[in-house]
């Protein structure tokens, strides 16, 4: 019965795709109804205590269950997706709009499946579908050749992380004979360690933590609504949620907490700097996503999954809000450059919403985001002040880039007249965008209630989770850092509006050159390997016949040369020597022996000629005969390589016969 949560959005998506509806209004209505129904189902499921179990085969079963935390996330997904889809239905390009909406709904369905999953197998299914949908969505405008490449980049990178989850599932099954979360408790230490670090790997890759962060930037190739959903409630959220869901079982593993906190805080700091230096309106937000999910990782590592999920909720609302604002700004200014916006006067209403979102991103009290962030800081108190300090700095950074972002994007510049090629939205489109922005902003504001202790206690009891103890000192430090960061951000925005367009800074702003590093360490070696093997095939394999032939020819020439120079010389010298001797004798005494000597000379000369002829013959034969044979053999060897398939078949047959003969001989 609980499967409904996952099936309903997916079914709505299928319905959209099937019904050839084209009107934006109708599309928005159908998608909205589907998501609203899902949202309404969550409390029903909680109250009725629904669970799902599907016996696949004797040993495999798909299970679904709701813990309080997962119920919260299961409600978050449709609550964020609803405004985003309304926005998408009204504001995205008309080409492929139905496909976009259908995929977004399927995306939500898969995320819900991942959330309600109660065993690793179900989780894997949802996980995979989420990844596939993200690929299709990032490449949505596939006619621009760059987008599919970015999609593949993101997909491959997250896929690499997925292997970790597969490892985890296999190890869990090997250890306990079941995929269920509950049976993780029965695992022995080694298996559990494999599970833990596999989960950490895949969670880090999905949530865009270091070193996987760059895919979040490439994911910006997708439409705005895709980015909003992907960063707020579905894809990226999956990683942090998974850690929070499995934390009770994985916490005992030694090094789990430290690894998660280290990854998280490193990403939080690095991402903060990246976001501060970015000049692209969307990439700032992307980097901030990584940073804030880093915070959630730290919370999980510190042992407070509840706090992590609370921050996930708050972050989901304001990040979707900010992305939609960025979308409006991009539509208005026709570009992604922060320095060319300043739309405060052009879009006052949107500016107000963006300010609310940015305030929660910055962690300015009394907004909900602020409290959850400070709660995470407080959560690290037990783990050591070093972590807390890092998080406070990260909080200051996030305040800085949030203020800088909102100041640059929606600051009160002169009301810039939109350039011509930008098509301004129709009134209905503007209304729809305003409505969805309003929904998200209202949710962000409502979360301020977290500051009231009564609300907080009630929440903690309903979620049956523990909140970290308050610590005024840390709180003060955090607020101070936020104030300082806010001023820094304003100063940067005012005095250096074009920050991040220079070479060096741009390099830092692209994840400290991490993409280049990945290319260098992973992509390049692979390509090199491929090239090397191709080269080996062409040269080494094919070289043998050619080498034989060349050797033969060389041998032939060499021996011929030797024979011409050395061997032919001998008889010649003999002849001249004898003639010289004859001349001397003739000079000694004239006519007497003259005739005899003449004969001798003639004889010796003939002898010399004869020997030289024979020597020529013999020497040549000895030298060049074998050489020619060798060269012929070489040519034949090369001729074998015809490239005709039937010759290949014949060779195959002969080889098979030889093999059979060998086997037969062995058998005898």
């Amino acid at each position, binding site marked *: 019965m609980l499967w409904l949560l996952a099936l309903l959005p997916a079914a709505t998506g299928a319905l959209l795709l099937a019904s050839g509806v084209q009107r934006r209004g109708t599309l928005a209505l159908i998608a909205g109804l589907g998501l609203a129904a899902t949202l309404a189902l969550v409390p029903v499921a909680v109250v009725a205590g629904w669970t799902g179990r599907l016996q696949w085969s004797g040993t495999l079963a798909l299970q679904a269950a709701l813990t309080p935390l997962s119920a919260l996330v299961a409600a978050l997904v449709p609550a964020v997706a609803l405004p985003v889809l309304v926005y998408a239905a009204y504001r995205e390009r008309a080409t492929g709009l139905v496909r976009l909406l259908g995929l977004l709904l399927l995306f939500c369905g898969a995320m819900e499946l991942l959330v309600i999953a109660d065993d690793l197998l179900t989780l894997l299914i949802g996980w995979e579908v989420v990844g596939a949908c993200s690929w299709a969505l990032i490449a949505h405008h596939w006619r621009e050749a760059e987008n599919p490449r970015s999609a593949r980049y993101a997909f491959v990178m997250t896929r690499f992380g997925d292997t970790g989850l597969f490892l985890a599932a296999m190890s869990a099954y090997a250890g306990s004979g079941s995929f269920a979360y509950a049976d993780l408790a029965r695992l022995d230490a080694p298996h559990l360690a494999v599970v833990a670090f596999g989960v950490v790997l895949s969670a880090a890759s999905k949530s865009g933590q270091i070193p996987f962060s760059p895919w979040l930037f490439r994911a910006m190739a997708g439409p705005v609504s895709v980015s909003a959903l992907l960063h707020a409630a579905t894809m990226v959220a999956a990683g942090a949620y998974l850690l929070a869901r499995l934390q009770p079982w994985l916490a005992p593993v030694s090094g789990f907490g430290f690894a998660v906190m280290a990854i998280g805080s490193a990403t939080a700091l690095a991402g903060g700097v990246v976001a501060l230096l970015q000049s692209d309106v969307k990439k700032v937000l992307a980097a901030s996503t990584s940073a804030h999910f880093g915070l959630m990782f730290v919370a999980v590592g510190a042992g407070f999954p509840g706090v992590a999920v609370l921050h996930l909720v708050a972050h989901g609302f304001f990040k979707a809000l900010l992305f939609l604002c960025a979308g409006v700004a991009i539509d208005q200014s026709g570009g992604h450059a922060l320095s060319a916006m300043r739309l405060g006067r052009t879009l006052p209403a949107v500016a107000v919403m963006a300010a609310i979102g940015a305030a929660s991103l910055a962690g300015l009290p009394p907004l909900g985001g602020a409290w959850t962030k400070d709660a995470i800081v407080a959560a690290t108190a037990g783990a050591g002040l070093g972590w807390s300090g890092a998080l406070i700095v990260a909080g200051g950074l996030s305040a800085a880039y949030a203020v800088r972002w909102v100041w640059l994007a929606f600051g009160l510049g002169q009301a810039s007249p939109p350039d011509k090629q930008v098509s301004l939205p129709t009134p209905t489109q503007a209304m729809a965008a305003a409505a969805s922005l309003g929904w998200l902003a209202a949710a962000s504001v409502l979360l301020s209630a977290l500051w009231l202790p009564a609300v907080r206690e009630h929440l903690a009891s309903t979620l049956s989770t523990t909140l970290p103890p308050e610590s005024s000192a840390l709180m003060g430090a955090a607020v101070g850092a936020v104030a300082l960061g806010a001023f820094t951000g304003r100063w940067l925005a005012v005095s250096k509006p074009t920050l991040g367009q220079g070479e060096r800074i741009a390099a830092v702003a692209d994840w400290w050159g991490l993409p280049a590093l990945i290319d260098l360490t992973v992509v390049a070696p692979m390509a090199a390997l491929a090239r090397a093997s191709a080269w080996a095939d062409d040269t080494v394999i*094919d070289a043998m016949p050619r080498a034989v032939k060349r050797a033969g020819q060389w041998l032939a020439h060499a021996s011929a040369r030797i024979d011409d120079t050395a061997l032919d010389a001998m008889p010649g010298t003999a002849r001249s020597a004898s003639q010289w001797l004859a001349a001397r004798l003739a000079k000694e005494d004239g006519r007497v022996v003259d005739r005899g000597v003449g004969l001798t000379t003639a004889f010796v000369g003939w002898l010399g000629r004869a020997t030289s002829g024979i020597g020529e013959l013999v020497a040549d034969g000895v030298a060049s005969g074998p050489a020619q044979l060798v060269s012929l053999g070489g040519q034949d060897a090369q001729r074998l*390589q015809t*490239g*005709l398939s*039937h010759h290949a*078949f014949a060779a195959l047959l002969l080889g098979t016969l030889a093999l059979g003969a060998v086997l037969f001989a062995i058998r005898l």
Partner: protein
Amino acid sequence: MTLQALLIVASALIGLGLYGVLSQQSFVMLMMGFELILNGVLLMTMAFWSFGSAGAPKGQLLAILVMAVMALEMAIGFALVTAVYRQRQADTTEALDTLKH
């Protein structure tokens, strides 16, 4: 009808198919040779199933897999022939020496 007789018939089919594979110029005829070989293999499988294994179900499964292999060979083979024909307008083995490095 003995196992020996069945197997000899099957090997005759295999020999014929081998002849076809080696002697035919046209790709399509060549594939028929493969099919004939697989035909013999199928007969051998079922012969062993029926006489040699007291009807172990795995034997029939193997036969079904052989049929699947036939279907694969047909599909991919014809697709390749079509693609090659469109690329090089070659439909005989002589006309296609691109395997040469």
